[in-house]
């Protein structure tokens, strides 16, 4: 079980936060370009899913899997988007993303009066808490911490 990386986007598609743990392959483009590519892909998938769905969607897109990794997507009603890449066997990542939102984002970003919510996150406290939160999760424990 491995957690690769995490993206947080706001509702306008601006990358608020990026962080990686076990990433073996870089995409070969700059981080800004990669974020735009990722957001564009998610935006297209969302519209693809609502169109191709045979029934009325509620939560819409949840995750996709390739042969090597799985991408999990969680969007709040306010448009904040959490994207987490893990290995394909990871379980209950959706709940985990929701917990990141509730226990880390709301606690250390929303409740911090000096942070502008539409700006990329630079808070050290958030960084530490998020790192600790991810590392204590069952999906992370058995991964190769040495490569970090």
């Amino acid at each position, binding site marked *: 079980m491995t957690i690769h990386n995490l993206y947080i986007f706001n509702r306008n598609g601006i990358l608020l936060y990026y962080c990686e743990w076990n990433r073996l*392959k870089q995409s070969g483009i700059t981080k800004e370009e990669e974020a735009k590519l990722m957001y564009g*892909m998610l935006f297209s998938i969302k519209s693809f899913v609502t169109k191709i769905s045979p*029934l009325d969607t509620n939560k819409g*897109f949840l995750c*996709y*899997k*390739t042969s090597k990794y799985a991408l999990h997507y969680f969007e709040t009603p306010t448009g904040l988007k959490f994207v987490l890449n893990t290995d394909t066997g990871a379980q209950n990542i959706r709940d985990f993303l929701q917990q990141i939102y509730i226990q880390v984002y709301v606690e250390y970003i929303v409740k911090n009066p000096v942070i502008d919510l539409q700006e990329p996150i630079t808070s050290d406290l958030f960084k530490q808490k998020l790192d600790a939160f991810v590392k204590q999760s069952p999906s992370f424990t058995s991964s190769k911490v040495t490569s970090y």
Partner: protein
Amino acid sequence: MIYGVYIVSKSGGLIFNLDHNVPKIENEQTFSYPLDLKLIYENKSVKVSFGQRDGIMVGHVLTALNSIPVTGKQLDDGRDALQIIENKDNYPLRLKFGRPKMTTNEKIFLASMFYPLFAIASQLSPEPKSSGIEVLEADTFKLHCFQTLTGVKFMVVAEPTQTGIEALLKKIYELYADFALKNPFYDLEMPIRCELFDTHLQALLEQMEKSGISNV
């Protein structure tokens, strides 16, 4: 349950599509003035943009007004549906809403949209040598994609709980190889119009839903 099968050629064009067991979502109700739904005219149809109730959801389109079919915003007798709805004297009104059905054009458009998504998913991979999207999960369906060595993509849209789709995809590939590729009148990259392929695929899907893939 299986909702549909799509086959996309190497260059991203939709060459085959079959709708299987797509549930029809329709609701007809009598409304009094003022209407408690917000309707907008968008993409050549009258859509609900706000105010979900009694099974009528945001995104549903107006399909009939007082049992007269509506196409776009025009009734079959040539009157404008939105004008009738705005006029207080016409109430009570019987309106029928339904989930919009995909047109062939939209299906072709969606198939070509999947192609770059598949490629980007592989490019953004945190692990080396990743394939493209194999399974895409949403709350109402699961899309399984199988890419052959020659680049043809087979896609099945099914219920999230449906199992055995991987085996089904291989079977469809087999049918494609047997009945489409061996047909001397079939051109590669062109839409598949082979009767035998259609009948065999239909039979395969029915058998799968009846007794599972292991018996096929």
